[in-house]
């Protein structure tokens, strides 16, 4: 049956070639778009993963004023009560919450601007880049300090060295040096939270609670709930997250719209070709019926033609995607806003198999009406017309 169907298609090579090309182009578009969508989503997820947190709980009042006070080394008039940490951790949307005490000791006359961060072990969940290149991965005692890589280079410190905070008079010992993260952590001096609270006379007080959500999509509900925490206000990475979420939603809608158009074009192309072929071959099909061909056999024959057209077209389209996908990615990257790093064309077997299945199903379905029409040809009527 398939051989007969292939012979029928080969009788009109130009028309068959054009149809196969149309299906191939549509399938290439579909595969590229779905791969772009998946890879883009994964890239954005990875970028969000690297940011480590999605929102901060900061003391009531103007957050910019609070940030300016911290940077100038002045004490905060307001602070987040330490008890708020447990309340935040109980929220169902919160994956991790880490208390922070930040303090800047700026002494421009001495050429220094020390940035201290008091953290506890929950900070590790928010800092996926927290890896030491030397020494211990965590504080070895209350008087230990872990240095960001830039801070360690500038202060010429190695694990085991002594370290002094002239402003607070605290002597510390370097426990570890962090690997370069490309974040502001590279310049920070990390000390245990309680040590920082003692050093800067902020017992029981926090500068902020950093929060990581189980799923960024839960951001709005989580913000609404966490706004109720006493003595704190939520500052989400709204702009960035909003941009990401809007972009992601828009990209997803656009991709599915174009995918539907591509599949429709592909189906219509097969439908048109087969319908024209059936109309052309009315007399031939009537003879086939007259010599004993059943309606089911005619139906199968035309459906097989539709199947062959779409399978050739789909295979060629996927081959085109595999061959030209990376070049296309390089071309598209220049025009994509906030393009994540790494490849965002994710040509995975699952995507390719899904495209092939969708293409075959739709193409075969597009051939059903022409096949039905062919099977309804009445031999006597068709032959008498001639």
């Amino acid at each position, binding site marked *: 049956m398939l*051989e007969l169907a292939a012979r029928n298609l080969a009788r009109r090579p130009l028309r068959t070639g054009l149809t196969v090309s149309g299906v191939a182009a549509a399938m290439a578009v579909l595969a590229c778009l779905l791969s772009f969508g998946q890879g883009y989503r994964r890239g954005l997820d990875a970028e969000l993963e690297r940011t480590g947190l999605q929102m901060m709980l900061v003391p009531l009042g103007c957050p910019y004023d609070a940030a300016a006070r911290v940077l100038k080394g002045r004490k905060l008039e307001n602070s987040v009560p330490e008890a708020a940490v447990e309340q935040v951790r109980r929220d169902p949307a919160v994956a991790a919450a880490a208390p922070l005490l930040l303090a800047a000791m700026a002494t421009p006359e*001495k*050429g220094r601007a*020390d940035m201290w961060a008091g953290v506890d072990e929950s900070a590790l969940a928010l800092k996926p880049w927290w890896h030491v290149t030397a020494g211990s991965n965590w504080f070895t005692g209350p008087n230990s300090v872990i240095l960001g890589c830039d801070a360690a*280079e500038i202060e*010429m410190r190695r694990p085991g060295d*002594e370290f*002094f905070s002239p402003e607070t008079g605290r002597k510390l010992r370097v426990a570890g040096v962090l690997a370069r993260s490309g974040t502001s952590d590279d310049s920070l001096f990390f000390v245990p939270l309680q040590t920082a609270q003692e050093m800067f006379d902020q017992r029981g007080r926090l500068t902020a609670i950093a929060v990581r959500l189980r799923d960024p999509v839960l951001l709005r509900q989580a913000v609404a709930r966490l706004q109720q925490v006493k003595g704190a206000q939520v500052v989400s990475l709204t702009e960035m997250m909003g941009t990401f979420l809007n972009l992601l939603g828009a990209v997803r809608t656009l991709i599915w719209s174009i995918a539907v158009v591509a599949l429709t074009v592909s189906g219509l192309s097969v439908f048109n070709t087969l319908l024209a072929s059936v109309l052309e071959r009315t007399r031939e099909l009537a003879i086939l019926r007259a010599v004993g061909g059943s309606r089911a056999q005619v139906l199968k024959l035309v459906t097989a033609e539709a199947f062959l057209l779409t399978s050739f077209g789909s*295979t060629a389209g996927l081959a085109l995607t595999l061959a030209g996908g990376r070049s296309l990615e390089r071309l598209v990257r220049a025009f994509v806003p906030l393009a994540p790093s790494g490849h965002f064309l994710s040509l995975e077997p699952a995507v390719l198999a899904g495209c092939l299945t969708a293409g075959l199903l739709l193409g075969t379905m597009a051939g059903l009406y022409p096949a039905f029409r062919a099977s309804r040809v009445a031999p006597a009527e068709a032959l008498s017309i001639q």
Partner: protein
Amino acid sequence: MSGKILYPAGALVLAACFGWRVATPARDEIVRTKELSIPEASPLCPWRAPQTDLKALFPNATRFEPQTLILSGLRLSLAQRLEPGAPLENALRVFRIFDGEEPLGTVLTQRVKGQYGAIELVLALDSHNAVRALQFQRLREPDAVARAIEEPSWRRCFEGKTAESRWELGREIPDVRPEARISARAVVEGVHRTLITLALAEQNRLKPVPALHHE
């Protein structure tokens, strides 16, 4: 007959596979790139307050020219001249000081490892590369240590010394109180090391590269 369609389709698939292979870097290429990553060098010490320091060190100076001397070609000579275990710098930051077109001397900045953190030195040399003055632009030592090494009378003991002079804490350079000794020794050794490095660079006529940073 069906072969007319199947063969071109097969050829297309093969071409796609070949294109994919060419477009994707081989695994060993990626690994090799990682292996060739450049190791991090310790950062050069900046001159934090040149205008203020110039007024104190070279009151007649009208301008200065920053230069960076790349020391990679001198590592063997440096290792032979310096104390065993002394850090080998990758580059030396040199500021040539002028009164108009007349050279007045040189300023060098150097970071040394104090007991509690880095100590940044500003070293003024006369036109014969003898120490004219020593200042500290940044340190984080406890008060007792900082007072001892910032003591003007102690710093004056460096004046007139060159790369060829004898440098020993407690002999040529007066001793300091015990709690400041580690940092004081770091300063003495740092100054001596810097002078030796400059002397070697000049003996070997190293050509300065343009300043790497804005001053």
